């Protein structure tokens, strides 16, 4: 057999000849340094390969080796707390080998090979198992019991199973005879091709909100466990901060954070903070529920393309164990650009803005991997996906934003003007929406109160009204407005400044529990109703504004949660006194 050889190199894309028999998406080793690559095109015996490492110095004529397997991730205990590059190379271990800078041709196994994990079997010899069945478990952290599965594509009868004890991920823990009589040695380490969704029994309807502790999200534009959301916005509008806030505080069991083509310092920031921040649910360090994928903007562009798939596959794997998983991808635009760059080198026919014609379907396939599901083993788990979008010039009409909008159910539109005023999170309340709002109303009614839906609707309408009034003010000035409208403007300002504004950096307000959100909403809503009554009864908007109770409504967010309870009852009383006729 003649050896496969490189015939062309252009940036991250390489062509090789004598590749007959190779398959699409097969992993290959390129050149003398055996750089990792993946086949992304075939034409007769020539394969087009995207290379996951710097190709400097590679020459035509160098060999290409086939691996005969698709690009896959390693799954098994030990994933939590790790930071990987886009193709799951462990960055901490890589640093131990090659130092502070990433050089080429270095690799290390994704999962540690010598660590012992306590495996407890849950099947016995003679059991009949179908693919995806749970065969045992490992306590990966104090709160995460890591279930070990029979690989989804194998079924058969258990011939032997390891006793409870300590094993490495490569030790055989189960022997299985499949229906053809072939024996399989099953280890805790399993591989899954990243571009293929892990199989499930069925998708289930979403029901429960994913609580994030961010008021504008939970109370106004909620996301659900198993839902999809997109955060578009120009540079500096706060996409990354929103993603970090969710990664820190949302009530998922597992977080997969994909830094896709973004800043090195942002990954360093996560690595610096997460080990010392405490998960409000389990009181364990946040890092212990987190898997980081960091393929920063200066790391190879092809690995950036792969990074979101690596992330979502790991997310699905923990979902299969019955956990609530949330995946953040910052930014999907960089992923799309990586596709564009590779597609350009392939000289494919471009679509809009030079993006490949398949942009829309790739985005859809990716978000489609989110959802609440019944797993093969019968458990219920979910993956929520929150993708940042970085539209050029902040213009939402561009292809990535538009294609994403067609798929996701929640849209948090970030706005440069709000960011410039330091109104954070800079979520534009007029453009944003959540198609899950009515689904989560029952949850809020149970955990907050029966008024949730009414208050939310009326307060959103208030903001809408403010916008209309401001247009009038632009024409005639504020003075000519009727008192009732002036009052509307004042309340809207309070709602914005005291409720919607929430600093990620305030030690208290960084996370606002849903109960507090609900009560803050009550206070503002009662002020709105009471004040409106007072103005109807003849007070001016200015007089209402000067009431002492008005000032009480500012700075509620940063108030320590334990002081808030008594504050709430006090102000409610004050409000009753201030607006005696009030309540309508």
């Amino acid at each position, binding site marked *: 057999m003649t050896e496969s050889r490189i015939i062309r190199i252009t940036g991250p894309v390489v062509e090789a000849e004598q590749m007959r028999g190779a398959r699409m998406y097969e992993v290959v080793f390129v050149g003398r340094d055996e750089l990792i690559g993946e086949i992304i095109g075939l034409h007769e015996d020539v394969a087009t390969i995207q290379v996951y490492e710097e190709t400097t110095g590679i020459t035509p004529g160098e060999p290409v080796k086939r691996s005969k397997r698709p690009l896959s991730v390693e799954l098994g205990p030990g994933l939590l707390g790790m930071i990987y590059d886009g193709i799951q190379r462990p960055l901490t271990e890589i640093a131990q080998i090659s130092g502070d800078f990433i050089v080429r041709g270095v690799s290390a196994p994704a999962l540690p090979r010598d660590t012992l994990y306590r495996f407890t079997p849950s099947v016995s010899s003679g059991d009949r198992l179908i693919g995806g069945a749970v065969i045992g478990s490992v306590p990966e952290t104090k709160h995460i019991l890591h279930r070990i599965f029979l690989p989804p594509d194998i079924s058969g009868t258990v011939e032997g199973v390891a006793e409870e004890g300590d094993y490495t991920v490569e030790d055989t823990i189960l022997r299985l005879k499949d229906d053809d009589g072939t024996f399989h040695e099953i280890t805790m380490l399993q591989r899954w091709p990243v571009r293929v969704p892990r199989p499930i029994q069925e998708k289930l309807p979403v029901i429960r909100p994913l609580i994030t502790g961010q008021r504008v999200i939970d109370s106004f534009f909620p996301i659900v466990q198993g839902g999809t959301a997109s955060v578009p916005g120009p540079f500096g509008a706060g996409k990354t901060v929103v993603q970090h806030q969710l990664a820190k505080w949302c009530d998922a069991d597992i977080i997969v954070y994909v830094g896709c083509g973004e800043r090195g310092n942002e990954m360093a920031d996560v690595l*610096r903070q997460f080990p010392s921040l405490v998960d409000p649910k389990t009181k364990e360090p946040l890092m212990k529920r987190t898997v980081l994928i960091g393929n920063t903007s200066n790391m190879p562009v092809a690995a950036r393309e792969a990074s979101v798939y690596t992330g979502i596959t790991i997310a699905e794997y923990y979902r299969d164990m019955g956990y609530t998983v949330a995946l953040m991808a910052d930014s999907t635009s960089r992923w799309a650009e990586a596709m564009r760059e590779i597609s350009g080198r392939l000289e494919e026919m471009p679509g809009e803005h030079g993006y490949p014609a398949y942009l829309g379907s790739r985005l859809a396939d990716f978000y489609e991997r989110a959802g609440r599901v019944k797993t093969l083993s019968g458990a219920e788990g979910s993956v929520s996906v929150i993708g940042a979008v970085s539209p050029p010039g902040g213009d939402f009409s561009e292809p990535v934003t538009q294609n994403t909008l067609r798929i996701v159910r929640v849209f948090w539109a970030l706005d440069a003007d709000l960011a410039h005023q330091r109104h954070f999170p800079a979520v534009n309340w007029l453009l944003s929406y959540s198609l899950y709002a009515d689904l989560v109303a029952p949850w809020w009614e149970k955990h907050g109160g029966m008024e949730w839906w009414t208050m939310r609707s009326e307060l959103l309408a208030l903001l809408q009204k403010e916008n209309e009034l401001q247009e009038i003010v632009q024409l005639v000035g504020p003075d000519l407005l009727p008192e009732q409208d002036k009052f509307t403007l004042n309340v809207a300002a309070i709602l914005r400044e005291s409720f919607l504004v929430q600093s990620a950096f305030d030690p208290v307000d960084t996370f606002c529990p849903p109960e507090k959100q609900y009560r803050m909403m009550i206070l503002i809503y009662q002020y709105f109703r009471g004040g409106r009554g007072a103005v109807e009864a003849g007070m001016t908007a200015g007089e209402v504004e000067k009431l002492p109770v008005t000032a009480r409504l500012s700075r509620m967010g940063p108030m320590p949660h334990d002081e808030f309870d008594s504050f709430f009852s006090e102000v409610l009383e004050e409000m009753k006194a201030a607006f005696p006729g009030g309540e309508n």
Partner: protein
Amino acid sequence: MPPLREFQSVVRVAGPILAVSGIDDAGYNEVVQVLLPDGSIRAGQVLESRKGMAIVMVFGGTRDLDCDITAVRFTGRPLTMPVSKDMLGRIFSGSAEPIDGGGSVVPEKEMEISGYAINPTRREFPEDCIETGISAIDGMNTLVRGQKLPVFSGSGLPHSMLAAQITRQARVRGTDESFAVVFAAMGITHEEARFFIHEFSETGARAHAVLFLNRADDPAIERIITPRLALTAAEYLAFDCGMHVLVVMQDITAYCEALREVSAAREEIPARRGYPGYMYTDLASLYERAGRVKGRPGSITQLPILSMPDDDITHPVPDLTGYITEGQIVLSRELHRKGVYPPIDVLPCLSRLMQGGIGEGRTRSDHANVSSQLYAAYARGRRLAGLVAVIGDEGLTDVDRLYLLFLERFEREFVGQRKDEGRSFDETLDRAWDLLSIFPKVELRRIDPKYIEQYYRGEIG
């Protein structure tokens, strides 16, 4: 890579690009020397390599090249540069040839100019704030060591003046560690170049500075390597010699135009306005070289300067830059016309690393609140000024009028300062309180009452 090979088989020249036939083993990114008919030599780099063909970009441009005599020598090496501490105090061309009359630098080390990505796990999160002495920066967009903070400017605005002032005044409180300035000029005028050389000489910074000058009439394609040479020098000084290096790169727009020229010559499918689709990645390969590395004492802080064509912040060059850098300082033509120096429009400005660099024990505990309040007040003042321009000021309330007064004074007294005036953090924050004290206390909603107690000095509290 294979050793030296020479070919006299240029088959095509288009713009800055040439194609050489007959070579089977050109390395991707390999350095070439182009030997011209007149005996002169220009450097180039392989952009694409195939069996039997290499596509080469020529840094010095392709003027006077031909297809008969011109020879191309493939060196078998990636682009490297010799580095040494002796570079300090020297001036080089845009391709690192000494142009100050001094001899060549005795190398301590040879480094690849494309650099390597810092492993994210080895990055030290930057949090030592730099006092630039400029209130609009220190007070509201604090710069920290290891940050990349560009200046978005326009033609005719005093960005060079500002960059020079920052270079002159920048210090980290309570330290006197060794520092250096690396200046990379891409396509700037002789006059601007002279201004910087003069500035550095005047202030004694010359001895700590390394300059790489590609001027407006130097070959455009050379601009693609100039910043990489500068950053390689900076990495050596920072991470090998432990110095704190400030890298000023001007003008990034000229750099991007050179990228566009190469891309057009290769007939690539452009993204926006003719700029190549990979420009984000390419710019990131420069900007991400800023930072700190765990266990190494030095740092690289970048101050890239770019001119926004048509003052358009959505133009691909500022846009992609803003998406990579850790904030931006934006200069405004309107403030410049009003005579405000430095004409910094704080609203679109941002320093993403400010949060970690300020506060108790770093600058002052009220810093974050004050900054946020200044933003809110200034934004409201600007909105009202816009309103007044349309409908006059009759309908305004008394409080509205205070905002207009604030707006006026803020631009003059806080943003505005002398070209030789360096303000300490305390002075900057005190000035902010002078202005915020125009308002009654209740207006200061973004400030913790305990700081109002401590610093407010208004009458109408």
